[in-house]
């Protein structure tokens, strides 16, 4: 269910919108003046705009993409002041000027699909005094000065894409689950090879060490288990896992 009366009133709001901005400007201008008084140290950037065009001023600056020729990107770039309220275009050398901006406080952004530029807040007094500062939406009155005329340097290309997870053997092997499975397997398979369990001296030694580990004779389980395990694995290693042993067996048959 939608209504036809509503769109007409919407167009009315846009018409009124300009009125709002005009009214706002006066108040904001007063605010900005107050700031300028508190802010005694006027930076080198602050200077009276030379545009004697009624109450309208010009925001000037330059956008730089390090290492890229301006011709390659200026045709896709725009300067947006407070959304799309005022629009400026870039000259072939990367500089720009947004004309016809009344006094107030604005967020100025250089927008291109390829490069990222940080926005800057520009305050214009009713007399046309300009200053630029960092945008801070949370502490809106905080002033961290930026140069004016604006020098906006691209902080690199936009990153739009996520990296695909590529599959590699190292990723697979370094996976903790795999490590947990593979390491015990290695121990089970390799340890009997390293330690010759058929040697009776060795076996005695091992038994001794086992007994030392658990001196309580009440609990002989572990050593028993170990011997059982080793004898079992010995058998399997002979028959199953090592192909060296099996081939001659097959021939024999």
């Amino acid at each position, binding site marked *: *269910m*939608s*209504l*036809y*009366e*509503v*769109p*007409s*009133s*919407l167009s*009315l*709001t846009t018409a*009124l*919108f300009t*009125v*709002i901005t005009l*009214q*706002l400007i006066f*108040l*904001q201008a007063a605010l900005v003046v107050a700031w300028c008084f508190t802010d005694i140290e006027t930076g080198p950037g602050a200077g009276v705009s030379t545009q004697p*065009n009624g109450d*309208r001023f*010009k925001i000037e600056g330059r956008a730089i993409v390090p290492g890229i020729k*301006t*011709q390659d990107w*200026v*045709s896709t770039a*725009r300067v947006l002041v*407070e*959304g*799309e309220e*005022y*629009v400026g*275009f*870039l*000259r*072939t050398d990367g500089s*720009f000027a947004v*004309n*016809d901006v009344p006094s107030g406080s604005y967020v100025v952004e250089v*927008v291109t*699909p*390829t490069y990222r530029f940080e926005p800057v807040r520009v305050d214009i007094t009713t007399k046309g005094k300009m200053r630029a500062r960092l945008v801070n*939406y*949370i502490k*809106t009155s905080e002033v961290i000065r930026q140069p004016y005329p604006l020098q906006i340097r691209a902080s690199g290309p*936009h*990153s*739009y*894409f*996520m990296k*695909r997870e590529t*599959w590699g053997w190292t990723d697979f092997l370094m996976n903790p689950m795999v490590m947990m499975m593979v390491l015990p397997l290695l121990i089970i398979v390799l340890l009997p090879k390293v330690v010759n369990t058929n040697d009776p001296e060795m076996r005695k030694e091992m038994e001794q060490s086992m007994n030392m580990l658990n001196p309580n004779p009440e609990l002989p389980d572990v050593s028993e288990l170990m011997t059982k395990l080793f004898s079992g694995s010995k058998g399997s290693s002979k*028959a*199953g896992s090592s*192909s060296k042993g*099996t081939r001659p*067996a*097959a021939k024999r*048959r």
Partner: protein
Amino acid sequence: MAKLILLWLKCVVLWATVEAVFEDQVGKFDWRQQYVGKVRFSHFDTHVQSSKKVLVATERNVFAALNTRTGELFWRHVDKTGSEGNIDALLQHGQDAVLVVGNGRLLRSWEINVGGLNWEVVLDSGSFQSACLVGQQDMVKHVAVLKKTAISVHYLSNGHQKWIENLPETETVDYQAVYSDGNGEVYVLGVVPHSHITIVVYSMEDGEIIKQMSVEAPWLSNIQASCVVVGQGMLTCVDSAGVSFYMLDLHLQLQMTQVPLQSLALEVDPGFHPVLLSHQPNLARQPLSEFFLQLGPDHYQLLQLNNGQIAAMRDFKPALLVSFATTGEKTVAAVMSPKNKTACSVNLFSAETGRRLLDTTLIVNMDPNGGKPEKLYVQAFLKKDDSVGYRAMVQTEDHTLTFIQQPGRVMWTREEALSDVVTMEMVDLPLTGTQAELEGEFGKKADGLMSMVMKRLSSQLILLQAWIGHLWKLFYDARKPRSQVKNDVTIENLSRDEFNLQKMMVMVTASGKLFGIDSKTGGILWRHYLDNVPPNAAFKLMVQRTTAHFPHPPQCTLLIKDKDTGLATLHVFNPIFGKKSHVTPPALPQPILQSLMLPLMDQDYAKVLLLVDDQYKVSAFPSTKNVLQQLQEMAASIFFYLVDSSQGRLSGFRLRTDLSTEQIWEVIIPPEVQKIVSVKGKRPNEHVHSQGRVMGDRSVLYKYLNPNLLAVVTESTDLHQERSFIGILLIDGVTGRIIHEAVQRKARGPVHVVHSENWVVYEYWSTKSRRNEFSVIELYEGMELYNSTVFSSLDRPHAPQVLQQSYIFPSSISTMEATLTEKGITSRHLLIGLPSGGILSLPKMFLDPRRPEIVSEQSREENLIPYAPELLIRTEWFINYNQTVSRVRGIYTAPSGLESTCLVVAYGLDIYQTRVYPSKQFDVLKDDYDYMLISSVLFALFFATMISKRLAEVKLLNRAWR
């Protein structure tokens, strides 16, 4: 605190990995089409012979360069909308293009090869009249701009003002034209209507007035409409009342000489105002002495001025359009004349002699569903044998640009009407013939066992045949190189895919042209121009019957309403083929206030459309007996609402059984204090899967899911920064009960609202902190559901719990919409169109009023993100990566057959279509699924078992021998 931040960061990182485009997916599911709008001025770049550019300045404040070979954009500059970005004039010289913008406010010069700005200067105030380039000794170095009260001359190289002079006697004289022919003088022509012409001649050097003259011309009211300068500075005017030419030599300025048209054996069509057309090939020199006179809508005459005498050269009738073009030293006249009903032909004529040039015929086929040709632009060039060749760009009423080469090959077509899409719908594609055949089997009545079996067998055979055909095609295509395999979608082979991802986009444009676009490729499958659409019409597109009811064709209805009179017409058409339906829509003699689609269907499965006129009478379409009977039965449960924003009145009505209406509630919002800006209901095709949210302690918080809820946005009429506010009212549309009211102080619009499920998200401008803010309202029933089986607005005694939270958003927004999926299981995202051209997909999770300020065990259990005042814009969340969409006007979302997938179309100046997966693709294998790995692992396991089996056998055997 540090812990908090860390946790929050973790969440952000976690979510960053969820929604993003992968680089190899570019162009796989998405496409973008860029438009410029209806062309107002156009120039072919002629300063280099091999140039492929045509410059266009359009009514949508766009200045662009198109490639004449392909029709694609070289570059495009989009200025502000509205009168401040309006392009008043386009002048081209060499590789510079000079534009006058914003009613003479700005003068801009563009470098057309790079597409960068050369310079921009602000002109003095005053409404713009005319502009021209001024040449001196075969060099063009200046541009002159004429305003209502002053003339200024600027250097072409840097825009600096050379001089500015106030015009004399501006109270009486209306200065309208400026002319220069390269002799160091600038002529300003003004008129005192029905009295005399004033001519002021300025010196190019210092702006001094050389001469000032006035000549009697009681018949003249507008110079630009009826006068041109021809030949050696001869001002030639045509007077329709006196049916004669008036000529005045600007250099001598003695008196106007009258030449009756009858003396040249010319006759003007009755009621037609004759128009003159001249041509100045080189701006530093004089215009041609040949010119065209239009005598009727399809009647032109080529004339020549020779030693102060006008001579008729050639008569063109019927001729639709004429144009001059110059290449080198040769100037030709192109004349377009109708050939037959569907084609026109363009011929070239030598401007000097009026003779037809051989082999220059070009056939232009006219689209029967398009508009009439409106403008003809000709690009002439010299061939190797020094004869003149040409290409023509034809602009038609429906804003289409067609570029045609001899003998009639269409090189490209641009549908510029699509730059202004007003509304759209996505319609499912029909089943293929074989699928429909199978479906038909189940629909029909059973007629005996044998025939049923036969039918079953035959349909199986058909399927087999289709499958073999498909295999054969696969095999055949596999042998060809990949680039040659084309899957051209035409209207004939359109069919629904497995997951219903491909749909028909029906787009309605402001010009009244309708388009059917294939959502997969972006190809235009049909177009239909409605030529009787009023210029300020409002449109509403409704799908009355979907493709699900074979053999009934799908049916869309477009309601076109004239905003001034309120009178409406209906256009009923088939959304798949674009053809007008044979169903005759009812005539609507009364202004229409409201239209609503009911879930009722007539016996042909068409949904019923109710129209409420200004007498509060209701009419139904279709209005068969069956429908009226159903309406009578249902009348007690049909409610609707009306909004009158000028009087601030919202009212609810009920339908009576005799189709009259009864007002049951009314809410007055005093229009002196605030005005209604928008009213948003929920989308009727929206599904909510879960009734509630599981809390950290395993209890359930039930959502308040009122399908009749309306979100009403108001703005204060007081626009003072301290006192302005916006209001949000949540009203039940059936009972008129105000569920919730919120006021945001020190805020103003434009307000963007999304209303869905149990939440309302809105965005506004905070005047206090000068930033954009988002606010979210969520409604909950509480821990218990009052009536879990059915929702009734009339029986809901408990008011819902309302939660609200606000956030800072670091950009203004153009439009906003929420994703939509088939069953509503997938989590929701907000799609936000930004002025920079990006479309941000913001998880609704970030806009959740239950985000806690202090993290507790329970909130962690619930996966709530701790509250942070600022929402971030991450470019990874842009669903359209670098394919920016200028001036996004609307975002349309539609569910697909896959629950995880939502189809998105963003339209504005451009059109962008893509798919989004708000909760990742959980129901299909990802497109990067590693088939190689899984199959190699499977094979490896298979062989391992084989080998180990063999080994086990050997071992057993050995043991047996032992």
